[in-house]
């Protein structure tokens, strides 16, 4: 299978070797999505989610036109599932099947669970691919230090003090660099008003 399209065709025909290949290829993607900071699952819990989502893909292969769509679908499914698992976990911790509000969740979990994550769960795989491209382009437009700070802050949830120590700059310089970097990214997002409008709808 030389191309992605050939691989997709082989998946549709149900070739075992193709499925093995796609499971190995997509596992890092679904695992990383399941480790979304908003869900804050442990590595072991994220592995469970990744396996569950990969298994569910067997029923989705006829719904996509390109392999990239299958990948984006898998990533969105994994992130949603991870948030749902975390939500259930905290609900159980509180006792039984009690319903828990998003505000309560945030209060109890602090920064480890950001409820606005749930606002974007309707993001389609196509939107995700477009958003991903925009963010990549935007990140390419900022300097190395700012890019690292953005990763530390938004991907790893690193506190300001740690970021300042790591990069040997003052805490206020961290804030200013992040602000200016994110402004550049904001300008990039404005290039796609349709997507920005959809993203805004998902936010509170």
């Amino acid at each position, binding site marked *: 299978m030389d191309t992605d399209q050939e691989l997709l065709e082989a998946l549709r025909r149900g*070739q075992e070797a*193709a499925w093995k290949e796609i499971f190995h290829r997509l596992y890092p993607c679904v695992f990383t999505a399941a480790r*979304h900071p908003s869900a804050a699952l442990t590595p072991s819990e994220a*592995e469970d989610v990744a396996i569950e989502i990969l298994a569910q893909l*067997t029923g989705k292969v006829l719904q996509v036109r390109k392999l990239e769509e299958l990948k984006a679908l898998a990533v969105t499914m994994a992130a949603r599932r991870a948030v749902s698992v975390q939500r259930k976990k905290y609900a159980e911790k509180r006792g039984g099947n009690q319903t828990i509000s998003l505000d309560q969740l945030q209060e109890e979990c602090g920064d480890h669970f*950001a409820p606005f994550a749930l606002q974007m769960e309707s993001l389609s795989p196509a939107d995700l691919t477009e958003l991903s491209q925009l963010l990549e382009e935007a990140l390419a437009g900022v300097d190395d230090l700012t890019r690292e700070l953005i990763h530390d802050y938004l991907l790893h949830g690193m506190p300001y003090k740690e970021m300042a120590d790591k990069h040997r700059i003052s805490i206020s310089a961290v804030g200013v660099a992040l602000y200016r970097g994110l402004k550049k990214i904001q300008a990039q*997002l404005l290039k796609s008003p349709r997507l920005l409008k959809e993203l805004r709808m998902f936010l509170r």
Partner: protein
Amino acid sequence: MEDQDFQSLVMKVLAREATPSETDLLESLMAKDKAREMEFHSMKQTVEIFREGLPLAQALKAGEPELPAYRWNELQAAVGREFGEKEQRAVIQQSTWSLWYERFSFKAAFAGALAMAAIVVSVMVFSFPQAREIEIGMYKDFATRGSGDSFVAPVLPDVTTVVFQKEEDFEKWKKESLPQNQKARIWIDEETGSIRLLWRDTHGNIQEISEALAGDLKQREKQLERMVRSLLNDQPRTNRTR
């Protein structure tokens, strides 16, 4: 307040690292200046989009970690469960003809090159809906022992792989009688160096067969697959029985 100080304050509040007095300061600044209030909300939105989207964008291009070897059999078990659930729903919801269509397209979607064999299995399964599942059991250590490669059980619709974390659970499973909905149970018995098979024949009688375990990992996988396929054809064959 200078722009730079305002920017630093905004980011501190958004990072939930501001003190109560810093939060109050920002609020009073925004109350006095609508432009700064709009600026804050616009940045808050960008942070939220980025906080949500960046991890997903990273996930799309992730190349690691690899699927852990010991998890491979669990994935196969999950795939098996997916098939099982789909078929069970089909039995409840659909007529016979649409059931045939569902079964065929489902198997075609996954079994592919084995399409002809899948049709044969479908006929058999439809005739004996109460006894078609095959369970393969193995103790967790078996999957990763040796060279680091994982032992891979065959991926087939009616086959479920169960990986036992506790030895006592594995022992209990081996001794349990075969449920009505199960066609066979297969396990690797490392103590005796054999593959054991508990099997319900076409007359409903329970048979027990064992076969000497092949030498290396790949041969063992092929051996197990051959055993499963012969079971699906209702003709269990082994190299040596006792």
